[in-house]
């Protein structure tokens, strides 16, 4: 009895002490991200500078963001959280938050204020779509086409419906193997006004209508499940037009000199950011919070835009976005949020898709298998 009481007391004291001092920080972190050009921008913009300032810390990368939800579930079930900070899309962050797998945070409390004193929550504004979500960048899922297709006889796609116009723009398409965005684009090109799209999509007939439109290009479409595949098929000339993340396109066009051009019409914005797994031990949590405070401040998010054409999530970062770190080109025209690019664009409808995703996903997959 005595021993356990003493133990208990010591534990309480230690926890309290840790809470007060907050000095007890782990010296390693496992960061989870997407790999590729995007992860590289994170490394250059804030991980390397952070490690320079804290030479005793080491960082391990795990390129597991695509299956972050499943893996975090397994970790929680096995009570063995090996990740410290996880980069996910807004939709995944909402799911993780709902399931209690990600930690809820007070944004004003843990994040730096803007240089002019604006609180973090105001600086990020609408980007904070969930209490667990710490936004980093806004990106878009959009389309690009090859500029050297002879069969097009000089025609260039100007709007999203070029995807479905196989007469003017013959050739293979490449689209994401999921209904989100594809269904919207199909209905837009089937004559549904934008405001009514989700109303139409709620009905069985509306879903069938979108699939019927997609049916017209189904046998000419290569479905991708990772963004790298779509860039590969386009660079290889296997496909002539298709969707991917705008940053991947930027990297292929500006950095790799591929004969591709952007088709910004009807681009869909999405947000990407960090979540902290729920249930981290104190020392690791302290390290993560210390890193987050640094990595999401106004300058760091603006720096990230030097390496990839994704818009920083903070309003205060936008004026600081300058030129590409290596190529020296002006980044603003390549940003999805640039006025010229965003004439016809919309934000992914997270709430609507949260309600309908499972049903439409099942329907879409069985349509694919037909």
């Amino acid at each position, binding site marked *: 009895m005595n021993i356990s009481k003493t133990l208990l007391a010591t534990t309480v004291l230690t926890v309290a002490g840790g809470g007060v001092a907050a000095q007890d920080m782990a010296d390693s972190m496992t960061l989870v991200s997407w790999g590729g050009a995007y992860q590289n921008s994170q490394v250059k913009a804030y991980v390397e500078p952070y490690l320079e300032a804290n030479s005793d810390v080491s960082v391990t990368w795990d*390129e597991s963001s695509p299956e972050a939800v499943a893996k975090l579930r397994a970790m929680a079930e096995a009570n063995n959280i090996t990740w410290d900070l996880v980069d996910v899309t807004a939709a995944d962050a909402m799911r993780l938050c709902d399931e209690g797998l990600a930690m809820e945070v007070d944004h004003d409390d843990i994040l730096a204020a803007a240089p002019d004193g604006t609180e973090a929550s105001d600086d990020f504004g609408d980007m904070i779509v969930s209490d667990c979500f710490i936004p980093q960048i806004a990106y878009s899922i959009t389309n690009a086409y090859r500029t050297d297709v002879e069969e097009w006889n000089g025609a260039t796609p100007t709007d999203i419906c070029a995807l479905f116009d196989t007469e003017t723009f013959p050739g293979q398409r490449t689209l994401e193997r999921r209904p989100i965005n594809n269904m919207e684009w199909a209905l837009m090109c089937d004559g549904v006004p934008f405001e009514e799209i989700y109303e139409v999509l709620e009905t069985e007939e509306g879903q069938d209508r979108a699939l019927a439109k997609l049916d017209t290009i189904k046998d000419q479409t290569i479905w991708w499940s990772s963004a790298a595949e779509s860039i590969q098929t386009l660079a290889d000339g296997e496909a002539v037009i298709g969707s991917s993340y705008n940053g991947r396109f930027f990297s292929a066009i500006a950095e790799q000199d591929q004969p591709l051009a952007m088709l910004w019409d009807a681009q869909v914005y999405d947000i990407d950011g960090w979540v902290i797994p729920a249930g981290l031990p104190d020392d690791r949590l302290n390290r993560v919070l210390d890193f987050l405070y640094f990595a999401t401040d106004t300058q760091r998010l603006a720096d990230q835009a030097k390496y990839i054409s994704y818009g920083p999530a903070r309003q205060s970062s936008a004026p600081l976005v300058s030129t590409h770190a290596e190529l020296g080109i002006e980044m603003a025209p390549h940003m999805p949020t640039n006025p010229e690019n965003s004439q016809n664009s919309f934000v992914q409808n997270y709430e609507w898709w949260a309600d309908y995703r499972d049903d439409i996903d099942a329907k879409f997959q069985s349509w694919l298998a037909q």
Partner: protein
Amino acid sequence: MSTSDVVITETRTMPYGFTCGVVAAAGAFFGLFVGTAQGSGLAGIVVGAALCAGLAFLAMAVAGVAHERTFKWGVLALFAVAGFWIGALPGLVVGTLFGWFIGWFIYWVGRCRYRSKLPPYLTSGQVLWHYSFRVICGAIFVFLITPILVVMPLSFNAQNFFTFTPEMLAFDPAGYSLKHYRDFFNSADWQQALRNSLLIAPVATLLSVGFGTLAAIGLSQPHVPFRRAIMAILISPMIVPLIISAAGMYFFYSRIGLQGTYLGVVLAHAALGIPFVIITVTATLVGFDRSLTRAAANMGADPVTTFFRVQMPLILPGVISGGLFAFITSFDEVVVVLFVGSANQQTLPWQMFTGLREQISPTILAVATMLVAISICLLTTLEVLRRRAEKLRGLSPG
């Protein structure tokens, strides 16, 4: 005179119709590819067939055996020039190869040389089957080996995509580079993955070989109770779908604190490798004469000495091949390590797997090429050693 020069069946000139027909068929077959590449498959077939039939007739009726050499060089030059005209340098190579082939083929068919190595009593059907069989075997070989061969030139790509660029196809040196190999050696991630693989695989192999050999020897004793059941359990990792073993290991190892540690990955891979060792060692034990151990015991050797001095040398081939399988299992394994390992234990297959999904970069192909080269070297060494051992033991004549 070596065996290949022996002529069993006399050659003769075949009817022109037969020669022209067969050669035309070959011409049509190749013409289809050239024609398709140039825009019209049908035109390719017709031109290829007509051209080759004409050449065959020329060879048989005009050139004959007397001017065979001149004729073959002429055909080779003709196709080389035609190839260069259609497709520059790559066309020249393909054209030369085809010209060499068709020149040889015309005389092979037209002079009935295909029968020269075969006994004279074979029917036409048997001769046809003799060569079809070889063609089928060749096609299967090509089917198996092509995916590996395609990877190799792509790994020297100057671009960051899995694409045969026009420069590469034109054999322009600018289209090739070693940058993906430099990437591999300069990237901390890949080097860490290589180190992890080289750390995990040998240790897992040692464990597998040790436990697997002992288990096989124990289970081969007739007096062990439930030995079939025990054997089945030990071999189960080979039969149970990997993903199920992996998920099971994940939860079990998490509970006991082994998940995300080197020891955990090594143990998991050892468990996967043990069945291979058990099976190969059990197979060699079938031919092992137990009276040898009794004789050794009779001479005063204790069981351990008997094992190392008498039994081990005799079952060594089984142990080594089992160990090789265990090593390759661990070195190639991606599913279990994704579950049991954490980011610190990323092995080469893990790195290749995520790399392929997230950033299709030819660095993966450079790694694959190096792994293929290493495997070929390893297997060649083993085969050479095996032959040498056989020769020393006088088992093989040559």
